[in-house]
């Protein structure tokens, strides 16, 4: 029996409620706002309980709530609906489908309006997999339906504890998500009706798998600086901190387009609405080269922009990761892009401030680190019970105040991720995109290119920076020709390999094979000893070489043009090679 309570205090989006019978932590409740003759239920979540009082964060604006207003507890934790029909949708942080809301409410979001996440009238072609008499546990497949290009598994609800025997499964045919497709029975004789839709609390990881594995497969993004220098793996975690204007969002958009995964979930968390709109309007038009279908078919957007209620922002990253885990259970590889985790951390900070908790650094709550760690730990590769593997890769962008990486959110994130792609203001001012800093960034994962060679290339970059710093003091005249050539080589590597033109149709994406090939060639050039009589000659040689190599990047791989440019590049390098 759900409990009832009365509001005794309102402070921003936090309300204090005196309750009567038992309530549980993180339980969902509805605060009944009296608006004239109407009662508007405002969704809230219990975040602290003290004596007879519970403190709830309200996912909506609290204007108009009064002391004495009724609150109805639901007995359920904050949950999402899981089932076919999630892909291609655009949800807010609480899984309300935004386009549907727009149809009903018009331009503005309306308080207290909640819609079902999955379409109730859509029919799915169900094919049974299990049969009567089978013994199953949570997460086992009972049947499948096709969802776009994917085979969507209808699974035993993750909440079902223990072993169950299949009593019946419906025959192949068309069903809506609310239809019962199977009936299960356990040893105690309890019966369980399985529908295609099930719910799961967002703040708990889905654990219906055999074991967690170590990430072992590279996840290519078709971005040279990432795949070669700071690789990411399927099931890994990484972060992209950077000051404003350093290109975080463009980078995330590129990843959402070119990442080698089955499904991409974008959790736009407390960022600009305009950016989501670009994805929203452009993705349906773009073709996914892997499937030949629209990019939107593999995409799911959680959109809780900066002006939407703060508490729902906190929920949105969990909604995102729960949906990612759900598709992982089908043996798929999912990439979750959360932009930006700093806004999420700020939501925690606002809440903690209202709860009058003792603040940690920069007023962030003391539990910030463990909350961030727990979130990133939901990424990973798992072996499912049927032997297949699935993965959730998490990329969090971080927006540090003043672009200073020393702040708590960046530091807490760096402790738990496997790769750090730090974006730098300096590089973006120089228009060097992607503005990932090649020396400060790191990755603990192994990529597609021989580690030793990459290490060598990084040494050249570091050497070039040293020479450049020295030159600022002693001038070009005071620099030896060897050092000067090292500097030019590092600039060459930067210009032709690290930088990539996101708006060029070919250069925007560089396949793994092409990277292997091009890196090998560029590496050979870097390792070629060269002689020049004068610095000017060296500079003008490298300028031309850079131009030619950039042109080479802009033609299709393995085209005749590609081969021609390659031979002319190497012909010119031969002209300056030292006769050792």
């Amino acid at each position, binding site marked *: 029996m759900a409990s009832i309570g009365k509001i*005794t*205090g*309102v*402070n*921003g989006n936090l309300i*204090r409620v005196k309750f009567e019978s038992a309530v549980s932590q993180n339980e969902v409740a509805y605060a009944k706002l009296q608006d004239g003759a109407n009662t508007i239920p405002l969704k809230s979540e219990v975040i602290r309980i003290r004596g007879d009082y519970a403190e709830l964060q309200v996912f909506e*604006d*609290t*204007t*108009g*709530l*009064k*002391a*004495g207003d009724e609150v109805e507890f639901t007995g359920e934790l904050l949950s999402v609906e899981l089932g076919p029909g999630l892909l291609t949708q*655009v949800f807010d942080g609480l899984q309300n489908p*935004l*386009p549907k*809301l*727009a149809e009903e*409410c*018009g*331009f*503005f*979001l*309306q*308080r207290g309006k909640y819609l079902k996440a999955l379409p109730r009238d859509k029919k799915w072609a169900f094919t049974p997999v299990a049969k009567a008499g089978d013994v199953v546990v949570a997460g086992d497949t009972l049947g499948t339906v096709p969802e776009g290009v994917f085979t969507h598994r209808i699974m035993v609800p993750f909440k079902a504890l223990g072993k169950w025997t299949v009593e019946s499964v419906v025959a192949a045919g068309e069903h809506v998500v609310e239809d019962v497709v199977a009936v299960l029975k356990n040893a105690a004789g309890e019966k369980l009706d399985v529908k295609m839709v099930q719910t799961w609390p967002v703040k708990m990881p889905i654990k219906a798998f055999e074991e967690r594995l170590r990430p072992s497969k590279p996840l290519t993004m078709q971005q040279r600086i990432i795949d070669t220098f700071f690789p990411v793996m399927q099931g890994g975690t990484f972060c992209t901190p950077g*000051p*404003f*204007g350093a290109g975080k969002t463009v980078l995330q958009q590129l990843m959402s387009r070119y990442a080698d995964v089955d499904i991409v979930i974008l959790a736009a968390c*407390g960022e*600009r*609405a*305009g950016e*989501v*709109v*670009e994805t*929203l*309007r*452009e993705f349906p038009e773009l073709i996914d080269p892997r499937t030949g279908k629209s990019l939107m078919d593999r995409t799911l957007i959680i*959109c809780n*922009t*900066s*002006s*939407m209620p*703060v508490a729902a922002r906190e929920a949105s990253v969990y909604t995102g990761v729960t949906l990612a885990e759900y598709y992982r259970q089908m043996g798929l590889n999912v990439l979750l892009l959360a932009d930006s985790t700093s*806004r999420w951390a*700020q*939501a925690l*900070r*606002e809440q903690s*401030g209202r709860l009058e908790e003792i*603040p940690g650094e*920069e*007023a*962030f709550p003391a539990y910030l680190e463990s909350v961030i760690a727990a979130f990133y730990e939901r990424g990973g590769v798992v072996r499912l019970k049927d032997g297949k593997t699935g993965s959730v890769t998490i990329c969090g962008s971080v*927006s540090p*105040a*003043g*672009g*200073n990486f020393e702040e708590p959110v960046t530091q807490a994130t760096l402790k738990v991720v496997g790769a750090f792609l730090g974006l730098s203001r300096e590089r973006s001012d120089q228009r060097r995109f992607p503005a990932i800093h090649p020396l400060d960034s790191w990755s603990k994962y192994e990529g597609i290119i021989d580690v030793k060679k990459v290490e060598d290339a990084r040494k050249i970059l570091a050497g070039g920076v040293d020479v450049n710093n020295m030159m600022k003091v002693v001038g070009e005249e005071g620099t030896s020709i060897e050092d000067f050539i090292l500097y030019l080589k590092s600039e060459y590597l930067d210009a032709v390999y690290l930088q990539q033109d996101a708006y060029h149709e070919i250069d925007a994406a560089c396949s793994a094979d092409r990277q292997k090939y091009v890196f090998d060639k560029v590496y050979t050039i870097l390792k070629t000893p060269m002689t020049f009589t004068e610095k000017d000659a060296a500079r003008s040689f490298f300028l031309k070489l850079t131009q030619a190599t950039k042109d080479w990047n802009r033609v299709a791989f393995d085209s005749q043009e590609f081969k021609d440019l390659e031979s002319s590049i190497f012909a010119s390098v031969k002209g300056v090679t030292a006769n050792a």
Partner: protein
Amino acid sequence: MRNVAYHRIERIAGSVITLRAEGVANQELAQVTSSFGTSLARVIRIDGDMVDLQVFAGARGISTDSEVRFLGEPMKVAYSDSLLGRVFNGAGKPRDNGPEVDGEKIAIGGPSVNPAKRIIPKTMVRTGIPMIDVFNTLVVSQKLPIFSIAGEPYNELLARIALQAEVDVIILGGMGLKHDDYLYLKDYLEKNGAMSRTVMFMHTASDPIVESLLVPDASLAVAEKFATDGKNVLVLLTDMTNFADAMKEIAITMEQIPSNRGYPGDLYSQLAARYEKAVDFEGSGSITILAVTTMPGDDVTHPVPDNTGYITEGQFYLRKGRIEPFGSLSRLKQQVNGKTRSDHRTIMNTMIQLYASYKETLEKQSMGFTMSNWDQKLLKYGVRFEKEMMDLSVNIPLEKALDLGWTILADCFAPEETGIPTKMINEYWPKKG
């Protein structure tokens, strides 16, 4: 409406008063009457039967037995076409000696626009200022701050943009303005005949601090209404740092835990809630926001400009009376500058690159290096660029500005020195004689 008057105020701190009252709603308005007059106040916290109220006119002069009467509804402003040409204070009361406006009452700080109802921005806002039109085009529905420091002519810039921008309605919101600046803005718009399409919400430095908090909300609520009625609205706000400082003041009074340099932890959300009102409605009007943000100590990492930068779609730097070409950025310009004239992007990139080279030459010159022939050309170019393009008094339409760009380039350089593609040169390079 409950008509109960309360006469016992328990606590007065800053502009916040606390009293015992029943059945009061969050954000509800109340009327506070003291021997110094009547002021509106709004409920900002409820704790049992203790209610905290923020008094718009400040708590000065309020006594423990002053009368408090709750009005049963949240803050609203009147909306009708007769708002045009009028000046109000933050609480929506006329400050131009005109009558109260009758009209539909609309709530301020309303809900967010559904992202699914937004469209990709596609229309440029012409301002007649080459540094904006050519180099960092302002786009309908964009939100842009003008980062500046005290003493810069940012209000003059706002006034010019208000006058010249091709929009239907201008809403000008002033927070913590010097009284002189307020009169300047008003006189300038009146003199140039733009007042008839302008609504002003003005808070000057001498007005109660709480009213400054209401200015952006009132301005944007009215703007939103005009926009849903199909109008293209330009909202100009000055100065958002004063707004943030007012929030800081209230937060400290309310004993909230400060996060960064005394600002409340929700500074980002508060600023975003205002800036995100910028929108292009599918099948209706639009709101474009330009907001002055003064940077204390010219420090862009100060919490206010820093948080603003993460929210807005670019920024203009106003330094030494000019819009800086470096650092200034309109994130949305790519959406429109490909469709204006085929040479727009070329002129934009080339002129800025050459101006950057000019800056390098200036440095060399100051260090006493000899100036080469090329340096001389750059020096000539830089001076002309600053005078004919960057100067804020220049007022020419985009096409004229592009033509002028070609003229300046042709006067200073040979075509091949500019690095412009040959195709463009053939089409646009001015023919001698």
